[in-house]
């Protein structure tokens, strides 16, 4: 008999929109055992190929079935430094779960029946974190004199620092903001990744000997050259933090935010706790988020929670030019957003913002769209329908249409070669940049990607950095 997937417990939508605490509660031990028991332990597992860092999924799930949670945790840690984070934010339905043999062939994302690998990873990760399970020492004498500067404390930087720290290198992370975590802190809201989890993971990195210096903007506070003089090697995990805009009339009206600004105010600066925290954020009666990615979902779900907190009737919409099927967001997050009451307005293209006499946005002028043949991205291209113009009420707009490379360092350091997208060019085999001994990974190399993809690149770079240090 086919066993049914174990549904993970969640806080009911009407309760969870009242605050920013975690939505998914995770598996209990018995639920984890039951879900792990569904794994077929395939002779030739396909799931592993779906993981950007190649976690031995079959083996860690096997350990769970044996109640050997310690070894489940250690199995994941062989490949992934942050299982508690990835178990929460990985788009598993497009990665390992999609590759699971239980997903129907040809499905664009994981089937319901696919093993909930991400929730099992989270279970094992949290077990390891809560029980302070130490990793087997790997310290190598040859690295004891080596020092590495890691620029950026987002997923790529943290991962690279963790890997090299384990080998015994002296690692220092430089972060430009006052808090560490990069996009994990300023971008991903606490209801998807609680701050305690992030803080714990970063603290354990520090306990393992990695030093973190916040408020240091490399390229400004310290120049790359200064780091090269002080350290044996440098890793750049600069991220894609520059917001894209729509480039339509009225976009600079008041209360029109980039998703980055809105999320930074809410997540990094805790504007949802204003005035206890001093950074304000505008809360509208008709909040519109433009875009169909995870950032759009995060922004919309934050916006709705702010409205509820303020006592407004929830009225937050996501506007997207295509249909739900083409949305790049995680299926899970689309479902969460819908459950919470986000209004999905599809096949709509914004054409202009209209403001009042004080310069505040009041309305959004739009066109209806239909889908034509697929474009370069493989998704069906939206085409505006002539004469279909209409207006909707909008007193706060949040633009979530993609991010570009952070350029503070590369602008100040022209010897680091970049491509037309201002992404750093690396040797694909070694992740080394145009400057010897300086490596890069994460969104600054591949453009906007996922947390685990960034970690995959950082891991690859850390192997090259280790080689570089040995030969130096």
């Amino acid at each position, binding site marked *: 008999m086919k066993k049914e997937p174990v549904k993970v417990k969640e806080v009911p939508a009407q309760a969870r929109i009242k605050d920013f605490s975690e939505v998914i509660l995770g598996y209990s031990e018995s639920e984890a055992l039951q879900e792990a028991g569904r794994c077929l332990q395939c002779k030739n597992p396909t799931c592993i190929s779906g993981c950007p860092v190649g976690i031995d999924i079959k083996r860690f799930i096997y350990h769970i079935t044996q109640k050997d949670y310690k070894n489940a945790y250690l199995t994941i840690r062989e490949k992934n430094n942050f299982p508690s984070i990835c178990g929460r934010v990985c788009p598993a339905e497009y990665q390992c779960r999609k590759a699971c043999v239980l997903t129907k062939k040809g499905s664009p994302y994981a089937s319901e029946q696919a093993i909930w690998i991400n929730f099992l990873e989270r279970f094992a990760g949290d077990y390891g974190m809560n029980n302070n399970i130490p990793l087997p020492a790997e310290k190598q004498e040859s690295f004891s004199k080596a020092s590495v500067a890691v620029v950026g404390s987002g997923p790529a930087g943290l991962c690279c620092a963790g890997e090299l720290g384990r080998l015994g290198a002296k690692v220092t992370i430089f972060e430009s903001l006052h808090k560490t975590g990069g996009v994990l802190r*300023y971008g991903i809201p606490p209801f998807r990744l609680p701050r305690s989890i992030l803080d714990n993971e970063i603290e354990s990195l520090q306990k393992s000997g990695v030093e973190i210096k916040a408020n240091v903007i490399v390229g400004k*506070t310290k120049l790359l050259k200064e780091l090269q003089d002080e350290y044996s090697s440098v890793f750049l995990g600069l991220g894609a933090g520059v917001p894209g805009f729509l480039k339509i009339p009225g976009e*600079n009206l008041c209360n029109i935010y980039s998703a980055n*600004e809105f999320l930074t105010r809410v997540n990094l600066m805790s504007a949802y706790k204003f005035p206890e*925290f*001093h950074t304000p954020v505008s809360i509208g009666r008709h909040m519109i988020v433009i875009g169909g990615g995870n950032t759009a979902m995060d922004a919309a779900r934050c916006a709705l929670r702010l409205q509820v907190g303020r006592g407004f009737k929830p009225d937050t919409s996501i506007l997207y030019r295509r249909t739900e099927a083409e949305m790049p967001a995680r299926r899970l997050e689309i479902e969460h957003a819908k459950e919470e009451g986000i209004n999905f307005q599809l096949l709509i293209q914004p054409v202009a913002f209209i403001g009042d006499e004080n310069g505040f946005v009041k309305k959004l002028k739009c066109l209806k769209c239909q889908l034509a043949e697929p474009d370069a991205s493989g998704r069906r291209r939206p085409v505006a329908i002539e004469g279909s113009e209409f207006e909707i009420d909008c007193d706060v707009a949040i633009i979530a249409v993609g991010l570009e490379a952070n350029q503070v360092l590369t602008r100040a350091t022209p010897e680091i070669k970049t491509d037309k997208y201002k992404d750093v060019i690396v040797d694909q085999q070694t992740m080394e940049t145009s400057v010897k001994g300086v490596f890069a990974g994460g969104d600054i190399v591949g453009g906007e990607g996922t947390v685990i993809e960034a970690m995959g690149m950082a891991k690859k770079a850390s192997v090259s950095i280790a080689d570089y240090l040995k030969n130096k």
Partner: protein
Amino acid sequence: MKILDKLVLSESAGVKVVRMEIYHPDIARNAGPGQFIAFMVSEKGERVPLTIVDKDLNKGTITLIFQEAGLTTRLLAKLNVGDSLYSLAGPLGHPTEIKKYGKAIMVGGGVGIAEIYPVARALKEAGNYVVSVLGARTRELLILETEMKKISDEFYVMTDDGSYGKKGFTTDALAELLKKDKYGLVYCVGPLPMMKRVSDLTKDFKVKTIVSLNALMVDATGMCGCCRVTVGNSIKFSCVDGPDFDAHLIDWDELSKRSKVYQEQEKHICKLSNI
């Protein structure tokens, strides 16, 4: 990030202008004229930008001068020698382009005088003839008079109430100067309405005019776009593209509206904090 020195430069109607010298050798080493920092007073605080007025490489310090305006600057003014800021990052933005312009007029209004000072000094050192026009509401609010005088070839003070220098606005003195002579540059920092009036005036005289904008910012490193401003029909970020811009190309009306987005929240939080 430790405060090594603090001095109240002026006080009027309970509003102070304060000078602070803060220890941060890295910022001091890499800072150029016209660049700024972003600071936080506490973990719960806002990130607020301030121009770097001076630096001392021997002591490893930078000097900030600010007027108590919103909650954050008031909280900053309450800190004392020995206290540390929660966060301090910089130097941010591009330094002002320092070259030989010939004759340059420096226009500073209120606390904006502190912001033109490092640029005026650098222009003087680069061999320019520096004419300074300083404006203040009243005599007590005039800051850095001695310092500015020292680096100026000509020096004028305007006060709104006539309590010092000449009665009138900086634009009055500026118009007189522009009528009489040719200038290679006007550099101006002050309240937005003043910068706009200066810009309108110098546009008529076709004199290149640079202003340093003090837009609202969050991260101040190009990641949020809070400080976006329309310059010559394209969107620029004050933090990474500025803070200096060609005054004649700025959409002043939009900038002025954008500067008031959080006025209500600011009033609310100041009232709650009894400050």
